[in-house]
Every structure is written in C-alpha cells, then in structure tokens.
C-alpha cells in the first residue's frame, strides 16, 4: 500500500485543534465580559444597590471545565453518535461478511481493526467515530449494504478506515464539543424567553406592588437571555465554520487514502455515484432521520442540511461551507487518480 502522510491535512488538524481548545475558553470569558458589563449594570438597576465589583472565572477553572467537556465528549461521543442514528454493534454472527471486509482492509491499512455498527436506515451512508484511533467504530447503514456491490462497499469502508488512520475522526469528534455546547445554551435561552412570554401573556392580574417586580424580572430575564443567545450564536457560527471547513479537506484526504488501501479509486467513485443517486430519490424525512447532527462524518453529503427544513433552509450553504465537497468533484479527482495509477 502506498500511503503518503497528508501534510495539508495534518496542518489543518493542528490549527483546528488549537481553535477547538481556545474557542470554548473564549466562549466562557465572553460570558464573563458580558456579565461584568451589561449584567452587573442590569443587576444594579434591578436590585437598586451598587454592584461595582466583577465576576471572575480563574483560568484554570475555565480550562479545566473545557477539559472536562472534552473528556465527556471522549467518554460519551461514540455512544451519542450511534444512538443518534439508531446503530447497533455488529458481530460475526449477524454480519460475518461485513466484519471480514473491515478486518481485511484494516490489516491492509496497518491499523487495528475497528468495531463495526450497523444503522437500521435505508439511506445509504457510512461514517466513523473515534475518541481514539485504537477505539474506532465504523458505522454503515443497511441501505449502504444493500445498495453497493462488494468492491464499492470495500471502497466506502476503506474511506472510513482512512479517516481513522488520518486521525481526523478524533479531531472531528472534539470539534463537536463547542457547537453542541453553544447550540444547547442558545436553545435554553430561547426556551426561557419563550416561557417568559407565555407566562406574561397568560398573567391575569398583577397588583401595583408586584407590577414593578414583574417588569424588572421581565427586563432582566429578556436582556440576559438575548445576550446569552447572541454570544452562543456568535460562537456557534465560528465553531461551525471551522468544523465544516476542516470537514471538506479531510474528505479528499480520505478518498485518496481509500484509493491507497483498495488500489481501486474507481470503485469509490462508483460507490459515491450510487450513494448520491440513491439519496436523491429519498424522501426528505428519511434524510433528516439519518442526519442526527452527524452529517460532517458521513462518506457522502446528505442533501438536506441538519438545520434546514425542506426547501426553507435556515442557514444557507453559501454562507456555511458544506461538510463535504461536491460529489462530482470528488468523482473527477478519483478518476484522475485512477488515470495516474494506470
């Protein structure tokens, strides 16, 4: 097997790792700054007493909290991913051929044979999750197994093993931390606001004594929630752009890696064509079912983005780089690679 380390991918992963570590800490301190500026002013107004001090989070705590988050991501990330796509661990009784293929390809790639899980989805796709390269899991869907012939299936499995060998799966797993965190915080802020306005809208009677308190509470909660949501969205955007940018490059690297493992770039090109064609014919609801927030990990892009809703995409792919390169472009590159090998 001719395996050349991809310096470009390694450089991007290094940059991504730095940003993945720095952005969550910056996220924490953005909140500290917001509290010390707007928050304490708001508190002073609400309590009618001075708050001239400052809230602090010691750097070791911020770094420690982020480290705990990453540790939790390491500990739970694969389970969450498998649960999101309703995947079960495959064993040699239920999927002897699939596991044999994976063992053979892993041996060729020179890595430990990963675990295999099968998702009960008709949408043909595959991805790998890996807190550590030695503890990787390759996930394939029933749809993928049914749609592809043997060489195509080998090519897709080799593509996922290339992700594991390149270690970009680990980086991608860590990259999920901040988008998940910011998305959760923004969601909480949204539901607090929604709940507040529901309560206010249903209030029947407030006496004069309570009126000022109600107004103060509404203003404080509203401003706090808006600021929380604004900061969360800002960091979510930053982390998501980073996440998706890395995602595109690593797909090309994994395509090249798959070609190196199987020695057959055209098999992967054919598999991509099949998967793409199959997904084009799928109903949107099926695609959303298989999304689960893991699109960036798949072998091929699903057409309906995770934050989209049918034709009304909330966030345009013109602004946010798509997780995967264009399939046609990938096929062309694989064909060029096949030409070079010939």
């Amino acid at each position: 097997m001719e395996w050349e380390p991809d310096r470009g991918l390694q450089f991007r992963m290094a940059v991504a790792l730095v940003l993945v570590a720095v952005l969550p800490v910056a996220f924490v301190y953005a909140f500290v700054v917001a509290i010390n500026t707007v928050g304490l002013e708001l508190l002073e107004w609400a309590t009618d007493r001075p708050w001239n001090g400052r809230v602090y989070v010691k750097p070791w705590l911020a770094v420690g909290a982020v480290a705990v988050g990453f540790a939790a991501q390491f500990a739970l990330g694969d389970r969450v991913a498998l649960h999101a796509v309703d995947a079960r661990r495959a064993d040699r009784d239920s999927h002897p051929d699939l596991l044999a293929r994976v063992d053979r390809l892993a041996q060729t790639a020179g890595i430990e044979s990963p675990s295999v899980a099968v998702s009960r989805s008709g949408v043909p796709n595959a991805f790998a999750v890996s807190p550590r390269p030695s503890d990787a899991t390759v996930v394939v869907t029933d749809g993928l197994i049914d749609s592809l012939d043997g060489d195509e299936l080998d090519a897709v499995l080799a593509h996922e093993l290339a992700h594991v060998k390149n270690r970009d799966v680990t980086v991608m797993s860590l990259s999920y931390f901040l988008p998940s965190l910011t998305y959760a915080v923004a969601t909480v802020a949204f539901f607090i606001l929604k709940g507040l306005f529901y309560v206010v809208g249903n209030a029947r009677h407030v006496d004069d004594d309570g009126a000022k308190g109600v107004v103060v509470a509404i203003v404080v909660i509203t401003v706090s929630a808006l600021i929380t949501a604004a900061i969360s969205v800002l960091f979510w955007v930053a982390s998501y752009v980073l996440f998706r940018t890395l995602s595109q490059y690593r797909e090309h690297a994994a395509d090249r890696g798959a070609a190196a493992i199987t020695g057959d770039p055209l098999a992967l090109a054919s598999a991509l064509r099949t998967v793409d064609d199959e997904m084009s014919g799928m109903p949107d609801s099926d695609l959303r079912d298989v999304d689960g927030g893991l699109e960036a990990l798949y072998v091929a892009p699903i057409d309906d983005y995770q934050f989209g809703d049918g034709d009304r995409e909330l966030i345009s792919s013109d602004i946010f780089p798509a997780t995967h390169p264009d399939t046609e472009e990938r096929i062309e590159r694989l064909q060029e690679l096949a030409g070079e090998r010939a």
Partner: protein
Amino acid sequence: MTSRRRFLASLATLAAGATLAGCGYYPGGGDIRWREESLGGLYRTDEVAVAGETLYTVTDSTQSYDVEEETWTRGAEVVAYDTADGSERYSEGFEERARAFGVGESDVAVGLGSDDTGLGGEGPSSSAVARIGPDGRQWTVTVDAAVEQLAVADERVYAVTAEGALVACADGEVRWRRGSYDLGNAGPDRESSALVGAGPAGVVLADGGEPVHLAPDGTERWRRPDISLVQQVVDVGSDRVHVADETTLYALAAESGESRWTAQESADLPEYALGRARYHRTGGDFYRVVDAELHALDDTGETRWTNEGVERETNVAAGETSVFVHTGSGVTALSADDGSRNWTVEYDRIDAGPFLVDAGVLVVSGQGVTCHVPRG
C-alpha cells in the same frame, strides 16, 4: 458501577468542587457589605458617632413611664452597635438628659443634666459625666455645673461647664478643676462643639478665642494671645496641636505652643464662606471643607488637591488610598492621591457619616446603616 459511570461521577464531583473554588464575585468599591434597615430611625437621634469599632447613638431625651412613681420620666439613651455587622451591642438609659457629647479613640462621653433642656438647649444645673465604651457604661461622675462641652483622651474625660470651668475626670472621679475659661458663644450645639480638644499630651481649649494648652495634670503649659479667633480645636497630638481660626489653620508645638506652620484659606473665598471652614484630621492628613469644596492638606499645610461638590456637614474619613465624603449625590470615594472620584453610591439623604471602620465605610441614612466596601 461501571468504569465509565465512575469516571463521569468523578468528573462531576471534580467540576462541582472546582466551580466553588475558581469563580465568584470580587466586591468593588461602594458595594454593600451589609445593611441594617432596622436602624432606619437613627436620623431621629441627636448624635451619631463612631469610635473604634462601635457606632454610638445618643438620644438626648426619651420618654418612658415609671410604674412605681406612676409618672412619665425623660432621660437620655445611648445605644451602641457593632460596626462589623450592625448588630446592637447594648442600650444604656439615663435618668438625666444628655447635654454634651464627646468622642474618643474607642469610647465616648456623655454630659448629663437634670434640667429640661437637651443637647441643643441651655440652663445650668448639677450634672454628671458618663464614660461609655464598647461594652457599656464604664463610670459616671458628678460635676457641680452643667456640662457644655466634652473631650475624651486616653482614660480622661475633660468637661467644660457652663460656668467656664475645665474639669478633668477619670475612673469615676474628678481629678482636677481649673477655670474659669470663656468659650464665648460655644454651646452644646454641633456648630461650635469643637472648642475643646484632648490628646495624650493634654487638653486645648479656646479661652476667649485664644488657644490654651493644659497638661494632663492641669498645669497650663502655654497660651497664644496672638491667635484670638479660634473656631475649632482640630487635633491635639503628642507633639503638635492644630487649631483653626476664621482664615487659618495653625500647627503649634505641643510643648511650647510655637508655630510650626500655618495654612491660610484661599483669598478667593466669597465673604459668606469666611470663617465657616471645618477641618478634619484623618488618615494622618488634614481636610478642609469650605464653600462646598474639600481641600486636602499635607502635614505641612500645603494644599495637595481640591474637590468640589461636598456637603458642608460631611464627615471626612480617610483611608490609605481613598477619602470618603458626603457629596450632593451620595457617598463618594475620592483618590487620596489626587482627589479624583473612585466611586459614588447615590443617597437621597445622609444623616451621618461616612465613617471608616474595619468592615468598610459606614453611612447612616433613611435606609438604615449601610456598610460599603471601601476599595475600588
């Protein structure tokens, strides 16, 4: 428990412990350390002062019903509060009314009289002097005339009577009596209540406007007839005595009365402000409040800086880095170095203070007694 659950449980424990230790709120200057709203009625008291770590309030006359005599009685009441948290230490009632009040380092003294006038009134009668400390009344001694002014230093209390006698009291006894002195229009009211001052080196009073210094044993050490309009005995130290007349602050040698330096008020002062300056010795420096201005003087009388907008009746309390005053908008901390504003906390009305104590800056207002964080 699986290893993964054990791992997550230990992470959660670690996170909880770390959160308690690594984040929080650093109080800033002006933040409220404590507020005792139950003391909101202190504005009705006649005197409020801080000595050491105790806040003393004096009500010159409170009415109560004597069941045995079946009659209403009126007498003074002194209440002491702990400045650490505003809690009441004790309440001391007297059968006589309070006529004078003096403040020492950690104790206070009250001049008591049996006539019908209080701190703001007149009327000679037999009187008593009570020395009161953080733990209650220490001693009481009878004086043969109404007490007009009091000064407290070390173990002694110096009382000036309505007849002009200077009486030194200690440990419940009259140690000596000198007089008669003429304190002019000095009465027991706040405006002219600083015509006698005491310190470890003795007592200084303004006799007909002239500063006179007496040693602790009653010996008259010196007199300065050339300074004839003393308005305030500012400070009596072991080596220096500071007095002020209508226009000038004098630093005099405690031993001889010789002038060490003088500091004149600005010639630009309007006529109505002349003679109305009030001096404060705090934090080792002098502060002059005149015409809504605060002047910071060093220990040679040189003006270091001025700041506009202070209240005429303000107390001035200086710490190492800040000077606390009552300004038009509330209580303000000024930089001790240049008089620039560090922080202000708004108050509609301040009844007494600010006072600097170990716990912070005390302000007595309609909201009770509030202790603010001084730094910032």
